[in-house]
């Protein structure tokens, strides 16, 4: 996948998750369906970066510079929070559950979990974004430059 596609994917995800944070901004149905639609791109983001993350994880205990180590800790926490907010979102959902034919009253505990993991996800997402700011600006700069055959080759690496 090219850096350009990855940048659009990541920026789109970042924007969608920020918008989805508060259901009162979009309405509950849009909030739920937007989050459900973000699952596949989120998994794609993970798949794209999986090998690099695993390489960092393997070197974690041995010798690793401070930044990749911090990245790994933040990314792992963000992953758990994102899975938690998605799972709890399904457990408290009304629009999606209604569309699928389930009408279960959500428990107070799952609502608390959803609130906590949503806050954690957004906080960690902002830190994740900040830690990868250099890559984001680099990819944006490459996108802005007129593309040459050598640049295109570099981009796909």
């Amino acid at each position, binding site marked *: 996948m090219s850096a350009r596609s990855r940048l659009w994917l990541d920026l789109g995800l970042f924007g969608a998750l920020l918008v989805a*944070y*508060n*259901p*009162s*901004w979009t309405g*509950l149905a849009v*909030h739920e369906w937007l989050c459900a639609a973000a699952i596949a791109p989120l*998994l794609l983001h*993970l*798949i794209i970066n*999986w*090998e690099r993350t695993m390489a960092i994880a393997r070197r974690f205990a041995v010798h690793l510079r401070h930044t990749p180590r911090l990245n790994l800790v933040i990314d792992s926490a963000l*992953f*758990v929070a994102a*899975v*938690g*907010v*998605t*799972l*709890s979102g399904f457990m*408290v959902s*009304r629009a999606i559950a209604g569309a699928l034919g389930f009408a279960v*009253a*959500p*428990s*107070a*505990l*799952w*609502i*608390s*979990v*959803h*609130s*906590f*993991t*949503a*806050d954690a996800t*957004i906080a960690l997402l902002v830190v994740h974004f900040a830690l990868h700011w250099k890559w984001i600006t680099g990819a944006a700069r490459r996108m802005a430059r007129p593309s040459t055959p050598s640049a295109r080759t570099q981009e796909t690496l």
Partner: protein
Amino acid sequence: MNRTLKNVIAVLLVTLFTAFAIFVTVQLTGRILGPTATAAAQSAPAQTSQSTTSGGQLVCPATGCAADSCHATQ
């Protein structure tokens, strides 16, 4: 098996395992804290001002239900 397929399977497995672990943890916590949490939710006064909103989710203190708005039900 090519590398991409391996990565897809690894990501799906890790995601499902994490979701399952969170599900079991929350359900077990609910079982342990269940009666206390329910009693606390029911004894809380049903006032809009005491509803909590976090992560964009409004929670009604009287019922513990998610809501777009919370009405007094006394």
